[in-house]
Protein backbone atom coordinates (compact mmCIF):
# COMPACT_ATOMS: atom_id res chain seq x y z
CA UNK A 1 0.00 0.00 0.00
CA UNK A 2 1.13 3.44 -0.79
CA UNK A 3 2.12 5.76 2.00
CA UNK A 4 1.34 8.78 -0.11
CA UNK A 5 -1.98 8.70 -1.93
CA UNK A 6 -1.61 8.36 -5.69
CA UNK A 7 1.97 7.12 -5.59
CA UNK A 8 2.47 3.39 -6.03
CA UNK A 9 4.93 1.60 -3.82
CA UNK A 10 8.16 0.48 -5.39
CA UNK A 11 9.91 -2.23 -3.46
CA UNK A 12 13.57 -1.53 -3.18
CA UNK A 13 15.44 -4.69 -2.46
CA UNK A 14 18.02 -4.78 0.32
CA UNK A 15 21.69 -4.55 -0.55
CA UNK A 16 22.04 -8.23 0.29
CA UNK A 17 19.33 -9.21 -2.17
CA UNK A 18 20.73 -6.86 -4.75
CA UNK A 19 24.20 -8.33 -4.49
CA UNK A 20 22.68 -11.76 -4.64
CA UNK A 21 21.59 -11.00 -8.24
CA UNK A 22 25.22 -10.82 -9.33
CA UNK A 23 27.24 -13.91 -10.09
CA UNK A 24 30.33 -13.96 -7.94
CA UNK A 25 33.45 -16.05 -7.74
CA UNK A 26 35.53 -15.60 -4.60
CA UNK A 27 39.16 -14.89 -5.51
CA UNK A 28 40.13 -16.14 -2.04
CA UNK A 29 42.06 -13.02 -1.04
CA UNK A 30 40.92 -9.45 -0.77
CA UNK A 31 41.81 -7.37 -3.81
CA UNK A 32 41.21 -4.28 -1.65
CA UNK A 33 43.17 -2.90 1.26
CA UNK A 34 44.29 0.28 2.93
CA UNK A 35 47.89 1.30 2.36
CA UNK A 36 48.60 2.70 5.81
CA UNK A 37 46.02 1.79 8.49
CA UNK A 38 47.31 4.62 10.68
CA UNK A 39 46.06 7.19 8.17
CA UNK A 40 42.52 5.80 8.44
CA UNK A 41 42.72 5.64 12.21
CA UNK A 42 44.37 8.97 12.96
CA UNK A 43 44.20 11.30 10.01
CA UNK A 44 40.94 10.51 8.24
CA UNK A 45 37.77 11.99 9.68
CA UNK A 46 35.49 11.63 6.66
CA UNK A 47 35.63 7.92 5.73
CA UNK A 48 34.68 8.75 2.17
CA UNK A 49 35.38 5.16 1.16
CA UNK A 50 32.33 4.15 3.21
CA UNK A 51 30.18 6.96 1.83
CA UNK A 52 30.70 6.29 -1.85
CA UNK A 53 30.67 2.52 -1.97
CA UNK A 54 27.48 1.27 -3.65
CA UNK A 55 27.95 -2.27 -2.35
CA UNK A 56 28.51 -1.90 1.38
CA UNK A 57 32.06 -3.16 1.16
CA UNK A 58 33.66 -0.49 3.32
CA UNK A 59 32.36 -0.30 6.86
CA UNK A 60 33.43 1.85 9.76
CA UNK A 61 35.72 -0.17 12.00
CA UNK A 62 35.95 0.21 15.73
CA UNK A 63 39.62 1.14 15.71
CA UNK A 64 39.01 3.77 13.00
CA UNK A 65 40.31 1.49 10.27
CA UNK A 66 37.49 0.41 7.98
CA UNK A 67 36.50 -3.22 7.66
CA UNK A 68 36.47 -4.41 4.06
CA UNK A 69 33.86 -6.97 2.99
CA UNK A 70 35.70 -7.49 -0.31
CA UNK A 71 33.35 -10.25 -1.44
CA UNK A 72 30.60 -7.63 -1.92
CA UNK A 73 32.71 -5.60 -4.32
CA UNK A 74 31.23 -4.71 -7.70
CA UNK A 75 34.61 -3.53 -8.97
CA UNK A 76 33.35 -0.06 -9.82
CA UNK A 77 36.52 1.63 -8.57
CA UNK A 78 34.77 4.44 -6.70
CA UNK A 79 36.65 3.97 -3.43
CA UNK A 80 39.95 4.28 -5.24
CA UNK A 81 39.19 7.84 -6.34
CA UNK A 82 37.14 8.82 -3.34
CA UNK A 83 39.73 8.38 -0.60
CA UNK A 84 41.12 11.88 -0.04
CA UNK A 85 44.36 10.44 1.32
CA UNK A 86 45.06 8.13 -1.61
CA UNK A 87 45.06 5.36 0.93
CA UNK A 88 43.12 2.68 -0.96
CA UNK A 89 44.99 -0.26 -2.45
CA UNK A 90 43.00 -1.51 -5.38
CA UNK A 91 43.72 -4.42 -7.69
CA UNK A 92 41.58 -6.47 -9.98
CA UNK A 93 40.69 -9.91 -8.63
CA UNK A 94 42.82 -12.57 -10.32
CA UNK A 95 41.96 -14.39 -13.51
CA UNK A 96 38.39 -13.27 -13.96
CA UNK A 97 37.27 -13.90 -10.39
CA UNK A 98 35.00 -11.41 -8.65
CA UNK A 99 31.78 -10.27 -10.28
CA UNK A 100 30.33 -11.51 -13.55
CA UNK A 101 27.47 -9.51 -14.97
CA UNK A 102 24.97 -11.13 -17.25
CA UNK A 103 23.24 -7.95 -18.41
CA UNK A 104 25.57 -5.11 -17.45
Amino acid at each position, binding site marked *: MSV*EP*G*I*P*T*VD*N*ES*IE*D*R*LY*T*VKYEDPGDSHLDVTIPGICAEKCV*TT*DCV*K*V*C*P*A*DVWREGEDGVPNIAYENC*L*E*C*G*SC*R*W*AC*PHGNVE*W*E*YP*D*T*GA*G*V*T*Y*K*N*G
Partner: protein
Amino acid sequence: MTETAPETDTDGSTDRIDLTDRDTATPDYDDAFDAVVVGAGLAGSTAALTMADEGLDVLLVERGRYPGAKNVFGGVLYTPTLRQLVDVDAAPLERYIAERRFGMLSDEDETAVSISPGEWHDPPHNDSYTVLRGEFDEWLAEQAVEAGATLVTRTTVTGLLREGDRVVGIETDRPDGTIRAPYVVLAEGGNSLVSEGADLKEKDRRENVAVGVKEVLEFPEREHAIEDRFRLTGDAGVSYHYFGEGAVGDAFGGGFIYTNGDTVSVGLAYRLSDAATSQPDPEGTLNAFKTHPAVAPLLRGARTVEYTAKTIPEGGADEIPELVHDGAVIVGDAAGLVLNNGLHLEGTNMAVESGYHAANAVASAAQRGRTDADALAAYREDLESSFVVENLERYEWLIERVQADRELLFEELPRAVADAGSEYFRMDRAPKDQHASTAKRELLRAVGGYTGAAKLAVRYRKLLS
Protein backbone atom coordinates in the same frame (compact mmCIF):
# COMPACT_ATOMS: atom_id res chain seq x y z
CA MET B 1 52.65 -8.26 -41.02
CA THR B 2 54.90 -10.15 -38.64
CA GLU B 3 57.81 -9.91 -41.08
CA THR B 4 57.80 -6.12 -41.17
CA ALA B 5 56.96 -5.48 -37.56
CA PRO B 6 60.06 -4.64 -35.55
CA GLU B 7 61.00 -6.02 -32.18
CA THR B 8 58.98 -9.14 -32.54
CA ASP B 9 60.08 -11.57 -29.91
CA THR B 10 59.42 -15.16 -30.75
CA ASP B 11 61.36 -16.72 -27.94
CA GLY B 12 58.63 -19.02 -26.79
CA SER B 13 59.95 -20.28 -23.48
CA THR B 14 59.80 -17.01 -21.59
CA ASP B 15 56.99 -15.36 -23.45
CA ARG B 16 54.53 -18.15 -23.76
CA ILE B 17 51.32 -17.78 -21.87
CA ASP B 18 49.55 -20.65 -20.24
CA LEU B 19 45.90 -20.21 -20.96
CA THR B 20 44.51 -23.67 -20.68
CA ASP B 21 41.02 -22.63 -19.66
CA ARG B 22 40.52 -20.04 -22.34
CA ASP B 23 37.03 -20.19 -23.87
CA THR B 24 37.86 -18.86 -27.30
CA ALA B 25 40.22 -19.60 -30.19
CA THR B 26 43.34 -21.73 -29.94
CA PRO B 27 46.21 -19.51 -30.93
CA ASP B 28 49.75 -20.61 -31.53
CA TYR B 29 51.61 -18.65 -28.92
CA ASP B 30 54.95 -19.43 -30.52
CA ASP B 31 54.08 -16.72 -33.01
CA ALA B 32 54.31 -13.36 -31.43
CA PHE B 33 51.57 -10.86 -32.07
CA ASP B 34 51.88 -7.55 -33.86
CA ALA B 35 49.60 -5.87 -31.37
CA VAL B 36 48.07 -6.58 -27.99
CA VAL B 37 44.80 -4.95 -26.97
CA VAL B 38 44.13 -4.57 -23.24
CA GLY B 39 40.40 -4.97 -22.62
CA ALA B 40 37.65 -6.38 -24.84
CA GLY B 41 35.15 -3.58 -24.30
CA LEU B 42 33.80 -1.44 -27.11
CA ALA B 43 37.05 0.43 -27.77
CA GLY B 44 39.23 -2.68 -27.51
CA SER B 45 37.15 -4.97 -29.70
CA THR B 46 36.78 -2.24 -32.31
CA ALA B 47 40.55 -1.73 -32.34
CA ALA B 48 41.19 -5.48 -32.56
CA LEU B 49 38.69 -5.88 -35.37
CA THR B 50 40.10 -2.98 -37.35
CA MET B 51 43.72 -4.11 -36.96
CA ALA B 52 42.81 -7.68 -37.87
CA ASP B 53 41.08 -6.38 -40.98
CA GLU B 54 44.32 -4.60 -41.82
CA GLY B 55 46.15 -7.91 -41.66
CA LEU B 56 47.78 -7.60 -38.26
CA ASP B 57 48.05 -10.48 -35.79
CA VAL B 58 46.16 -9.22 -32.81
CA LEU B 59 45.79 -10.54 -29.26
CA LEU B 60 42.77 -9.24 -27.38
CA VAL B 61 43.09 -9.72 -23.61
CA GLU B 62 40.06 -9.50 -21.34
CA ARG B 63 39.94 -9.96 -17.59
CA GLY B 64 36.28 -11.05 -17.44
CA ARG B 65 35.05 -14.60 -17.98
CA TYR B 66 33.79 -13.31 -21.29
CA PRO B 67 33.84 -9.90 -22.93
CA GLY B 68 31.15 -7.84 -21.24
CA ALA B 69 31.20 -9.83 -18.00
CA LYS B 70 32.67 -6.87 -16.13
CA ASN B 71 31.02 -4.07 -18.06
CA VAL B 72 28.17 -1.77 -17.16
CA PHE B 73 26.56 1.18 -18.86
CA GLY B 74 23.12 2.83 -18.99
CA GLY B 75 22.53 2.35 -21.75
CA VAL B 76 22.05 3.46 -25.20
CA LEU B 77 24.65 2.31 -27.70
CA TYR B 78 25.33 4.85 -30.44
CA THR B 79 26.33 3.11 -33.65
CA PRO B 80 27.26 5.63 -36.39
CA THR B 81 30.87 4.39 -36.62
CA LEU B 82 30.20 0.79 -35.67
CA ARG B 83 27.77 0.49 -38.56
CA GLN B 84 30.66 1.08 -40.97
CA LEU B 85 32.61 -1.80 -39.45
CA VAL B 86 30.17 -4.59 -38.56
CA ASP B 87 26.66 -5.69 -39.39
CA VAL B 88 24.91 -3.86 -36.57
CA ASP B 89 21.53 -5.33 -37.51
CA ALA B 90 22.87 -8.81 -36.72
CA ALA B 91 23.95 -7.71 -33.23
CA PRO B 92 22.04 -8.47 -30.01
CA LEU B 93 20.15 -5.17 -29.84
CA GLU B 94 17.30 -4.66 -27.41
CA ARG B 95 15.24 -1.77 -28.78
CA TYR B 96 15.83 1.27 -30.95
CA ILE B 97 15.23 4.65 -29.31
CA ALA B 98 11.97 6.15 -30.53
CA GLU B 99 11.52 8.70 -27.77
CA ARG B 100 13.88 10.74 -25.63
CA ARG B 101 12.45 12.45 -22.66
CA PHE B 102 14.07 14.94 -20.32
CA GLY B 103 12.39 15.30 -16.97
CA MET B 104 13.22 17.91 -14.35
CA LEU B 105 12.38 16.58 -10.93
CA SER B 106 11.91 18.59 -7.79
CA ASP B 107 11.23 16.51 -4.72
CA GLU B 108 7.68 15.81 -5.78
CA ASP B 109 7.06 17.38 -9.18
CA GLU B 110 8.11 16.64 -12.73
CA THR B 111 8.28 18.97 -15.71
CA ALA B 112 9.30 17.14 -18.87
CA VAL B 113 10.08 17.59 -22.52
CA SER B 114 9.67 14.65 -24.85
CA ILE B 115 11.08 14.25 -28.34
CA SER B 116 9.99 11.52 -30.71
CA PRO B 117 10.71 12.39 -34.34
CA GLY B 118 8.92 10.09 -36.76
CA GLU B 119 12.14 9.29 -38.59
CA TRP B 120 13.58 7.54 -35.53
CA HIS B 121 11.23 4.70 -36.35
CA ASP B 122 12.97 4.20 -39.68
CA PRO B 123 16.30 2.41 -40.09
CA PRO B 124 18.97 3.21 -39.05
CA HIS B 125 16.94 4.57 -36.13
CA ASN B 126 19.22 7.54 -35.48
CA ASP B 127 21.92 4.96 -34.65
CA SER B 128 20.66 4.66 -31.08
CA TYR B 129 19.81 1.30 -29.49
CA THR B 130 19.53 -0.08 -26.01
CA VAL B 131 21.79 -3.10 -25.51
CA LEU B 132 22.94 -5.24 -22.60
CA ARG B 133 26.70 -5.19 -22.41
CA GLY B 134 26.99 -8.80 -21.25
CA GLU B 135 25.64 -9.88 -24.61
CA PHE B 136 26.70 -7.07 -26.86
CA ASP B 137 30.38 -6.93 -25.90
CA GLU B 138 30.70 -10.65 -26.37
CA TRP B 139 29.18 -10.36 -29.81
CA LEU B 140 31.50 -7.52 -30.80
CA ALA B 141 34.56 -9.44 -29.60
CA GLU B 142 33.36 -12.37 -31.71
CA GLN B 143 33.38 -10.10 -34.73
CA ALA B 144 37.02 -9.28 -33.97
CA VAL B 145 37.79 -13.00 -33.66
CA GLU B 146 36.08 -13.68 -36.97
CA ALA B 147 38.25 -11.01 -38.52
CA GLY B 148 41.28 -12.95 -37.28
CA ALA B 149 42.02 -11.60 -33.81
CA THR B 150 42.82 -13.96 -30.93
CA LEU B 151 40.82 -13.52 -27.76
CA VAL B 152 41.88 -14.61 -24.30
CA THR B 153 39.56 -14.13 -21.37
CA ARG B 154 39.96 -14.45 -17.60
CA THR B 155 43.32 -12.81 -17.98
CA THR B 156 44.15 -9.53 -16.28
CA VAL B 157 46.91 -7.37 -17.62
CA THR B 158 48.96 -6.36 -14.58
CA GLY B 159 51.60 -4.17 -16.15
CA LEU B 160 53.47 -3.14 -19.26
CA LEU B 161 56.84 -4.34 -20.43
CA ARG B 162 59.19 -1.44 -21.07
CA GLU B 163 62.46 -0.95 -22.83
CA GLY B 164 63.44 2.52 -21.76
CA ASP B 165 60.38 4.61 -22.47
CA ARG B 166 59.06 2.29 -25.06
CA VAL B 167 56.20 -0.10 -24.34
CA VAL B 168 57.11 -3.52 -25.70
CA GLY B 169 54.41 -5.80 -24.34
CA ILE B 170 52.30 -6.78 -21.38
CA GLU B 171 52.45 -8.70 -18.14
CA THR B 172 49.43 -10.71 -17.08
CA ASP B 173 48.29 -12.63 -14.03
CA ARG B 174 48.81 -15.95 -15.82
CA PRO B 175 51.81 -18.13 -15.07
CA ASP B 176 54.57 -17.04 -17.45
CA GLY B 177 52.02 -14.59 -18.70
CA THR B 178 54.37 -12.11 -20.34
CA ILE B 179 53.75 -11.25 -23.96
CA ARG B 180 55.93 -9.08 -26.08
CA ALA B 181 54.41 -7.15 -28.97
CA PRO B 182 55.43 -4.04 -30.89
CA TYR B 183 52.16 -2.25 -30.14
CA VAL B 184 49.88 -2.15 -27.12
CA VAL B 185 46.40 -0.62 -27.35
CA LEU B 186 45.19 0.35 -23.89
CA ALA B 187 41.41 -0.07 -23.94
CA GLU B 188 40.97 -0.89 -20.26
CA GLY B 189 38.13 1.51 -19.48
CA GLY B 190 38.00 4.28 -16.89
CA ASN B 191 39.55 2.31 -14.05
CA SER B 192 42.82 2.38 -15.95
CA LEU B 193 45.22 0.69 -13.57
CA VAL B 194 47.61 -0.38 -16.32
CA SER B 195 47.99 3.03 -17.99
CA GLU B 196 48.34 4.75 -14.62
CA GLY B 197 50.73 2.13 -13.28
CA ALA B 198 52.97 2.71 -16.31
CA ASP B 199 52.78 6.51 -15.88
CA LEU B 200 51.11 6.95 -19.24
CA LYS B 201 48.34 8.93 -17.57
CA GLU B 202 47.60 10.44 -14.21
CA LYS B 203 44.87 9.25 -11.91
CA ASP B 204 41.78 11.44 -12.27
CA ARG B 205 40.64 13.66 -9.42
CA ARG B 206 37.37 12.54 -7.85
CA GLU B 207 35.71 15.74 -9.11
CA ASN B 208 36.14 14.30 -12.61
CA VAL B 209 34.66 10.88 -11.97
CA ALA B 210 31.02 9.91 -11.53
CA VAL B 211 29.76 6.85 -9.72
CA GLY B 212 26.93 5.07 -11.50
CA VAL B 213 24.54 2.48 -10.11
CA LYS B 214 21.95 0.67 -12.11
CA GLU B 215 19.35 -2.03 -11.81
CA VAL B 216 17.88 -4.17 -14.52
CA LEU B 217 14.25 -4.77 -13.62
CA GLU B 218 11.66 -7.22 -14.86
CA PHE B 219 7.91 -7.26 -14.40
CA PRO B 220 7.15 -10.86 -13.52
CA GLU B 221 3.40 -10.68 -13.18
CA ARG B 222 2.66 -8.02 -15.74
CA GLU B 223 2.70 -8.98 -19.35
CA HIS B 224 3.17 -6.00 -21.69
CA ALA B 225 4.08 -3.77 -18.73
CA ILE B 226 6.91 -2.21 -20.74
CA GLU B 227 4.88 -1.64 -23.90
CA ASP B 228 1.95 -0.23 -21.97
CA ARG B 229 3.81 2.01 -19.58
CA PHE B 230 6.18 3.43 -22.14
CA ARG B 231 3.68 3.39 -25.01
CA LEU B 232 5.70 1.15 -27.29
CA THR B 233 5.02 -1.10 -30.22
CA GLY B 234 7.39 -3.53 -31.92
CA ASP B 235 11.07 -2.85 -31.30
CA ALA B 236 10.59 0.78 -30.35
CA GLY B 237 12.02 1.87 -27.01
CA VAL B 238 12.65 4.95 -24.92
CA SER B 239 15.42 6.73 -23.15
CA TYR B 240 14.29 8.88 -20.24
CA HIS B 241 16.71 11.25 -18.53
CA TYR B 242 16.07 12.95 -15.24
CA PHE B 243 17.73 15.87 -13.48
CA GLY B 244 17.14 17.86 -10.39
CA GLU B 245 16.93 17.10 -6.71
CA GLY B 246 14.33 14.38 -7.25
CA ALA B 247 16.88 12.47 -9.29
CA VAL B 248 20.21 12.88 -7.50
CA GLY B 249 19.55 15.29 -4.64
CA ASP B 250 21.93 18.21 -4.71
CA ALA B 251 24.64 16.26 -6.50
CA PHE B 252 25.87 16.95 -10.00
CA GLY B 253 24.45 14.22 -12.20
CA GLY B 254 21.21 12.62 -13.28
CA GLY B 255 19.01 9.55 -13.42
CA PHE B 256 17.85 7.42 -16.33
CA ILE B 257 15.37 4.79 -17.42
CA TYR B 258 15.92 2.80 -20.61
CA THR B 259 13.72 0.09 -22.03
CA ASN B 260 15.26 -3.21 -23.07
CA GLY B 261 13.38 -6.06 -24.75
CA ASP B 262 11.84 -7.59 -21.63
CA THR B 263 13.45 -5.50 -18.91
CA VAL B 264 14.10 -1.88 -18.05
CA SER B 265 17.35 -0.38 -16.88
CA VAL B 266 17.03 2.23 -14.18
CA GLY B 267 19.94 4.03 -12.61
CA LEU B 268 21.79 7.21 -11.94
CA ALA B 269 25.23 8.68 -11.94
CA TYR B 270 26.70 11.60 -10.05
CA ARG B 271 30.03 13.02 -9.09
CA LEU B 272 32.14 11.07 -6.67
CA SER B 273 33.09 14.25 -4.86
CA ASP B 274 29.39 14.85 -4.18
CA ALA B 275 28.91 11.25 -3.11
CA ALA B 276 31.74 11.73 -0.63
CA THR B 277 30.57 15.05 0.76
CA SER B 278 26.90 15.85 0.48
CA GLN B 279 24.76 13.25 -1.18
CA PRO B 280 23.64 9.97 0.49
CA ASP B 281 25.33 6.84 -0.78
CA PRO B 282 24.60 5.69 -4.33
CA GLU B 283 22.30 2.88 -3.28
CA GLY B 284 20.19 5.18 -1.10
CA THR B 285 20.04 7.77 -3.85
CA LEU B 286 18.85 5.11 -6.28
CA ASN B 287 16.13 4.03 -3.84
CA ALA B 288 14.87 7.59 -3.54
CA PHE B 289 14.88 8.11 -7.29
CA LYS B 290 12.94 4.90 -7.90
CA THR B 291 10.26 5.97 -5.45
CA HIS B 292 9.89 9.52 -6.79
CA PRO B 293 6.20 10.15 -7.59
CA ALA B 294 7.00 10.62 -11.29
CA VAL B 295 9.15 7.50 -11.51
CA ALA B 296 7.43 4.98 -9.24
CA PRO B 297 4.41 4.42 -11.54
CA LEU B 298 6.78 3.31 -14.30
CA LEU B 299 8.49 0.77 -12.07
CA ARG B 300 5.65 -0.52 -9.93
CA GLY B 301 5.68 -4.28 -9.44
CA ALA B 302 9.21 -4.67 -10.77
CA ARG B 303 11.75 -7.19 -9.54
CA THR B 304 15.50 -6.71 -9.59
CA VAL B 305 17.24 -8.93 -12.08
CA GLU B 306 20.67 -7.43 -11.59
CA TYR B 307 22.31 -4.67 -9.56
CA THR B 308 25.49 -3.12 -10.96
CA ALA B 309 27.90 -0.27 -10.38
CA LYS B 310 30.60 1.42 -12.42
CA THR B 311 32.34 4.77 -12.77
CA ILE B 312 32.35 7.30 -15.59
CA PRO B 313 35.32 9.53 -16.38
CA GLU B 314 33.79 12.92 -17.07
CA GLY B 315 36.67 15.35 -17.00
CA GLY B 316 36.01 16.31 -20.62
CA ALA B 317 38.50 17.66 -23.13
CA ASP B 318 40.80 19.10 -20.47
CA GLU B 319 41.47 15.72 -18.94
CA ILE B 320 42.36 13.75 -22.05
CA PRO B 321 45.79 12.25 -21.36
CA GLU B 322 48.63 12.00 -23.87
CA LEU B 323 47.04 9.55 -26.29
CA VAL B 324 50.14 8.35 -28.07
CA HIS B 325 53.31 6.86 -26.62
CA ASP B 326 56.24 4.90 -27.96
CA GLY B 327 54.65 1.53 -28.66
CA ALA B 328 51.28 2.31 -27.08
CA VAL B 329 48.03 4.20 -27.59
CA ILE B 330 45.18 4.89 -25.14
CA VAL B 331 41.57 4.67 -26.31
CA GLY B 332 37.98 4.91 -25.05
CA ASP B 333 37.20 5.52 -21.39
CA ALA B 334 40.83 4.91 -20.48
CA ALA B 335 41.48 8.16 -22.36
CA GLY B 336 38.51 9.86 -20.66
CA LEU B 337 36.49 10.06 -23.87
CA VAL B 338 32.97 10.47 -22.50
CA LEU B 339 30.58 13.33 -23.04
CA ASN B 340 28.47 13.58 -19.91
CA ASN B 341 26.85 16.94 -19.36
CA GLY B 342 23.23 16.28 -18.48
CA LEU B 343 21.94 16.59 -22.03
CA HIS B 344 24.23 13.91 -23.40
CA LEU B 345 25.69 10.75 -21.94
CA GLU B 346 27.79 9.41 -24.77
CA GLY B 347 30.80 7.20 -24.39
CA THR B 348 30.06 4.20 -26.58
CA ASN B 349 30.38 6.11 -29.85
CA MET B 350 33.61 7.72 -28.65
CA ALA B 351 35.08 4.40 -27.56
CA VAL B 352 34.40 2.92 -30.99
CA GLU B 353 35.64 5.97 -32.89
CA SER B 354 38.87 6.13 -30.90
CA GLY B 355 39.50 2.39 -31.18
CA TYR B 356 39.04 2.67 -34.92
CA HIS B 357 41.44 5.59 -35.41
CA ALA B 358 44.03 4.10 -33.09
CA ALA B 359 43.92 0.80 -34.97
CA ASN B 360 44.43 2.52 -38.30
CA ALA B 361 47.37 4.47 -36.93
CA VAL B 362 48.95 1.26 -35.63
CA ALA B 363 48.40 -0.51 -38.95
CA SER B 364 50.01 2.30 -40.87
CA ALA B 365 52.96 2.54 -38.47
CA ALA B 366 53.44 -1.22 -38.72
CA GLN B 367 53.57 -0.94 -42.47
CA ARG B 368 56.39 1.54 -42.10
CA GLY B 369 58.08 -0.67 -39.51
CA ARG B 370 57.96 2.01 -36.81
CA THR B 371 56.69 1.96 -33.24
CA ASP B 372 57.63 5.42 -31.98
CA ALA B 373 55.03 7.90 -30.80
CA ASP B 374 55.57 10.13 -33.84
CA ALA B 375 54.67 7.25 -36.12
CA LEU B 376 51.40 6.81 -34.20
CA ALA B 377 50.53 10.49 -34.11
CA ALA B 378 47.89 10.01 -36.80
CA TYR B 379 45.67 8.59 -34.07
CA ARG B 380 45.71 11.81 -32.09
CA GLU B 381 45.26 13.91 -35.21
CA ASP B 382 42.35 11.84 -36.51
CA LEU B 383 40.66 11.89 -33.14
CA GLU B 384 41.10 15.63 -32.82
CA SER B 385 39.40 16.23 -36.12
CA SER B 386 36.62 13.72 -35.38
CA PHE B 387 33.39 14.38 -33.52
CA VAL B 388 34.98 12.99 -30.36
CA VAL B 389 37.30 15.84 -29.45
CA GLU B 390 35.11 18.39 -31.24
CA ASN B 391 32.13 17.50 -29.07
CA LEU B 392 34.13 17.26 -25.87
CA GLU B 393 35.57 20.71 -26.52
CA ARG B 394 32.28 22.16 -27.63
CA TYR B 395 30.52 21.22 -24.41
CA GLU B 396 33.39 21.95 -22.04
CA TRP B 397 31.87 25.33 -21.19
CA LEU B 398 28.46 23.77 -20.54
CA ILE B 399 29.77 21.50 -17.83
CA GLU B 400 31.54 24.41 -16.15
CA ARG B 401 28.44 26.60 -16.38
CA VAL B 402 26.08 23.97 -15.13
CA GLN B 403 28.45 23.24 -12.28
CA ALA B 404 28.47 26.92 -11.33
CA ASP B 405 24.69 27.27 -11.66
CA ARG B 406 23.85 23.90 -10.18
CA GLU B 407 21.71 25.13 -7.35
CA LEU B 408 19.63 27.23 -9.68
CA LEU B 409 19.40 24.59 -12.39
CA PHE B 410 18.89 21.47 -10.33
CA GLU B 411 16.94 22.78 -7.36
CA GLU B 412 15.43 26.23 -7.73
CA LEU B 413 14.47 26.08 -11.37
CA PRO B 414 12.79 22.65 -11.32
CA ARG B 415 10.71 23.79 -8.38
CA ALA B 416 9.86 27.12 -9.99
CA VAL B 417 9.00 25.53 -13.32
CA ALA B 418 6.74 23.01 -11.63
CA ASP B 419 5.09 25.74 -9.58
CA ALA B 420 4.72 27.99 -12.60
CA GLY B 421 3.27 25.11 -14.57
CA SER B 422 0.69 24.28 -11.97
CA GLU B 423 -0.12 27.96 -11.62
CA TYR B 424 -0.47 28.46 -15.36
CA PHE B 425 -2.90 25.59 -15.71
CA ARG B 426 -4.65 26.15 -12.40
CA MET B 427 -8.35 25.39 -12.59
CA ASP B 428 -10.28 27.83 -10.46
CA ARG B 429 -12.50 30.81 -11.13
CA ALA B 430 -9.77 33.38 -11.58
CA PRO B 431 -9.14 34.53 -15.15
CA LYS B 432 -6.29 32.85 -17.02
CA ASP B 433 -4.49 36.17 -17.33
CA GLN B 434 -4.00 36.23 -13.64
CA HIS B 435 -2.60 32.68 -13.57
CA ALA B 436 -0.25 33.46 -16.41
CA SER B 437 1.19 36.47 -14.70
CA THR B 438 1.59 34.66 -11.38
CA ALA B 439 3.33 31.83 -13.23
CA LYS B 440 5.61 34.28 -14.98
CA ARG B 441 6.37 36.03 -11.73
CA GLU B 442 7.34 32.78 -10.06
CA LEU B 443 9.64 31.79 -12.86
CA LEU B 444 11.23 35.19 -13.00
CA ARG B 445 11.80 35.21 -9.31
CA ALA B 446 13.71 31.93 -9.53
CA VAL B 447 16.03 33.17 -12.23
CA GLY B 448 16.52 36.62 -10.72
CA GLY B 449 14.08 38.78 -12.64
CA TYR B 450 14.37 39.92 -16.26
CA THR B 451 18.03 40.74 -15.87
CA GLY B 452 18.67 37.33 -14.38
CA ALA B 453 16.73 35.66 -17.18
CA ALA B 454 18.63 37.61 -19.80
CA LYS B 455 21.95 36.71 -18.22
CA LEU B 456 20.95 33.08 -18.04
CA ALA B 457 19.98 33.15 -21.70
CA VAL B 458 23.33 34.67 -22.61
CA ARG B 459 25.20 32.12 -20.52
CA TYR B 460 23.54 29.23 -22.30
CA ARG B 461 23.12 30.70 -25.78
CA LYS B 462 25.90 28.55 -27.19
CA LEU B 463 23.65 25.55 -26.73
CA LEU B 464 21.81 26.63 -29.82
CA SER B 465 24.67 28.11 -31.84
